[in-house]
């Protein structure tokens, strides 16, 4: 019964989305208040319907309803409850439904939190979101229905890939998808602005919180994905430049550019056309990222290549959404007025530079990802584009980006002189120089040395920025405290996010110095790595809910003092005939001690075990930095100017519709 309810709710949501796409648009054009008022109602209705559908699917998974094909193919009675729930989005059909649900929640959020928007703008934004949602719900219903039944129902399901039975992966997809889908809101704002033919400071102010929110989720999602591969795959790799990873990095890069260029629109009414294009581009990349990758064109195992019908539908939908919005952009963009003037040396100028560099990196990643299939199609030659290429091309672009990032927040708007800025940053520059010298002696790779120095520069200059605004050490501390309390949170948010970037880059540079050894030992034997002695003291079997495991005990000592005891294990999942390695990681925030248990060799009386030992300096900083970046974004979202200021502003600058 429940799956049918879910199916019905999905179909209902699809109808509501179709209505949401058409009626408010007509209403906004005719200035019919009743039709426009339908927009929030339909958006909330669609959200409720999709949440219901999703709940039905989760219910089917929890109650082991194997007559639902999706559950039968991805779940099993013995699977722990957590993974029964998270397994719902661990497969194609479920993840498309999750995607659609998050999109409907975005629509609902615009309906509920966007009451301060002019009604015509709100109606159009919601209509655009509805149009996109209708397309994907139709995709869900016609080619990948998660509620499809199978008869006769199997007694037990096929179970889930053990690699996915991991708490990290449980929450990775929803967060990443929220990031992807969240950029639908800036996209909808951009389309609405193009329809209205008007972009102004108020538009910039409305669109920016949505972009920042989506950016925070995407940042978190990418960091989590990277962390997952770090501790699940068992050799300390954290980024592979796989098409799937690139697909999340590309919208992150343009999204970061968008978050910055929207500031210029808000503060200076400049870069308007560009910002609209970025909003369209970011969502287009998110869409292509989630779906093109899975269409099987790119050489990725994430693909559902076995069903070209899905691929055709998705490509059609992508062409419609992206092509349609770019066409609208081409027609309407020339009508948007260009705004405030500024000199190349100014905050705006640096933000333009930031956008140029971010988009160049994006172009490189995009070309690198798309080149192999096109090469194969056009010339019949296969090539690979991997880590050595991306390292060599993106890092030289990222380093100047970070150098300018240090100056950015300190440079005044409109017209600036570099000298006063430099004077305030001299100590940050000195620290960076020291870091450069130290790194030169300790690292072999020139890019790693430069990355370290620029990362230190970014962190120091963000501190310098905040210190400067607080007049720290130039005034009594009490006064600085007073200033800190009155300073907008967005300032702290920006400084934190920038420092976060520096921390991530330091982590990456540190990882280039990682050391590892593969050893084969008897129980009781010790090996040395990075000055620590690793002793395998015990190996014993253990039973889990749906697997049996072999657990090792490794004691790590430094100069005889016990640092940590690691328990890496190897799990065998009987239902899938698959083994997974469970890494044991000990971190002191400066370095990870990372142990993996490998194969057992020799006879049972006197076995030897293969161990893989890693010493990963600064590894945790990569994810810590990511979290700090996201937290910085969230902090600036909580700025009272966003919460309180916007409605007030909205009343006074109520957009006059120009048709």
């Amino acid at each position, binding site marked *: 019964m429940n799956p049918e309810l879910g199916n019905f709710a999905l179909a209902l949501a699809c109808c509501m989305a179709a209505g949401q796409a058409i009626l408010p648009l007509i209403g906004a054009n005719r200035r019919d208040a009743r039709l426009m008022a339908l927009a929030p109602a339909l958006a909330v209705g669609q959200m409720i319907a999709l949440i219901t559908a999703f709940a039905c699917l989760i219910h089917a998974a929890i109650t082991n309803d194997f007559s639902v094909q999706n559950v039968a193919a991805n779940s099993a009675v013995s699977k722990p409850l957590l993974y029964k729930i998270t397994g719902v989005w661990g497969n194609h059909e479920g993840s498309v439904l999750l995607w659609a649900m998050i999109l409907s929640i975005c629509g609902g959020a615009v309906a509920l939190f966007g009451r301060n928007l002019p009604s015509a703008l709100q109606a159009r934004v919601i209509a655009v979101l509805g149009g996109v949602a209708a397309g994907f719900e139709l995709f869900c219903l016609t080619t990948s229905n998660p509620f499809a039944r199978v008869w006769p129902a199997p007694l037990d399901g096929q179970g889930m890939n053990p690699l996915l039975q991991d708490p990290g992966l449980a929450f990775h997809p929803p967060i990443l998808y929220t990031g992807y889908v969240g950029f639908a809101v800036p996209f909808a704002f951009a389309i609405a602005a193009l329809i209205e033919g008007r972009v102004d400071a108020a538009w910039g102010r409305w669109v920016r919180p949505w972009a920042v929110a989506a950016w925070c989720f995407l940042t978190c999602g990418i960091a989590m994905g990277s962390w997952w591969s770090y501790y699940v795959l068992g050799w300390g790799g954290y980024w592979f430049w796989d098409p799937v990873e690139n697909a999340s990095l590309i919208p992150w890069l343009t999204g970061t550019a968008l978050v910055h260029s929207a500031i210029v629109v808000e503060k200076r009414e400049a870069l308007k056309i560009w910002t609209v294009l970025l909003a369209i581009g970011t969502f287009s990349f998110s869409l292509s990222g989630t779906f093109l990758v899975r*269409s*099987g*064109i*790119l*050489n990725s195992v994430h*693909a559902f*290549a076995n069903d*070209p019908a899905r*691929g*055709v539908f998705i*490509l059609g939908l992508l062409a419609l959404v992206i092509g349609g919005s770019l066409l609208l952009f081409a027609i309407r963009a020339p009508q948007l007025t260009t705004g405030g003037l500024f000199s190349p040396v100014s905050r705006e100028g640096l933000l333009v530079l930031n956008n140029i560099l971010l988009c160049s990196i994006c172009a490189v990643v995009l070309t690198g990802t798309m080149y192999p*299939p096109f090469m*194969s*199609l056009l010339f*019949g*030659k*296969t090539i690979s584009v991997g880590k050595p290429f991306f390292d060599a091309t993106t890092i030289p672009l990222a380093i100047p980006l970070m150098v300018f990032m240090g100056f950015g927040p300190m440079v005044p708007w409109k017209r600036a002189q570099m000298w006063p800025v430099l004077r305030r940053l001299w100590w940050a520059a000195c620290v960076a120089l020291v870091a450069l010298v130290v790194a030169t002696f300790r690292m072999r790779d020139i890019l790693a040395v430069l990355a370290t120095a620029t990362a230190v520069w970014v962190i120091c200059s963000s501190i310098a920025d905040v210190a400067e605004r607080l007049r720290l050490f130039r005034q009594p501390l009490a006064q600085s405290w007073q200033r800190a309390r009155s300073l907008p949170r967005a300032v702290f948010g920006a400084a934190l996010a920038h420092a976060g970037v520096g921390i991530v880059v330091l982590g990456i540079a540190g990882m280039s110095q990682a050391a590892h050894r593969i050893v084969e030992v008897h129980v009781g034997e010790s090996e040395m790595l990075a000055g620590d002695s690793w002793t395998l003291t015990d190996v014993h079997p253990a039973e889990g809910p749906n697997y049996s495991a072999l657990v090792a005990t490794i004691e790590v000592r430094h100069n005889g003092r016990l640092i940590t005891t690691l328990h890496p294990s190897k799990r065998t999942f009987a239902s899938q005939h698959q083994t997974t390695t469970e890494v044991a990681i000990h971190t002191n925030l400066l370095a990870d001690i990372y142990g993996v248990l490998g194969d057992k060799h020799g006879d049972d009386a006197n076995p030897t075990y293969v161990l893989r030992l890693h010493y990963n300096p600064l590894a945790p900083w990569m994810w810590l930095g990511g979290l700090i970046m996201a937290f910085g974004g969230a902090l600036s979202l909580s700025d009272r100017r966003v919460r309180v200021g916007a409605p007030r502003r909205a009343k006074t600058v109520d957009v006059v519709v120009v048709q």
Partner: protein
Amino acid sequence: MLSGMTRGSFDPHDIHAPALNRPVPDFALPDQAPGQGFSARDLRSLKSPVLVNYFASWCIPCVAEMPVLNALKERLPIWGIAYKDKPEHALGFVQRAGNPYARIAADRDGLAAIDWGVSGVPETFLIGPGGVIRWHTASPITETMITNTIMPLADSLKS
């Protein structure tokens, strides 16, 4: 691209190993029961084309192509190479599937396969007279492949 993928003319997973129109690499592989092993010299001394097929008992698509190979063996000799397989497993596999191979060699450590540019199983090569690789696929052999490509090519190589 998608239409190419449905037709099979575009396979994003194909690696296009550059084996085409080259003589077979140097190798000499021992017998794999129930067949007799062979070496590069055997292939180079051939006067008529043969199909060389890499297979393994643990490979699912290999099972799928066995009936097709069995239907082909009357028209074109097929020589098999068991890739990284235990001799008894490979023997069992061939006996179960109905042996399509005129000769079978064992590549136990998979190093000969690397010389051939093989990246997985099944992988199949059409060897022309003189031991030159004339055609290659990394996909399981199908009926359409035989009628459209393999047999016309093999017939032209015979003359």
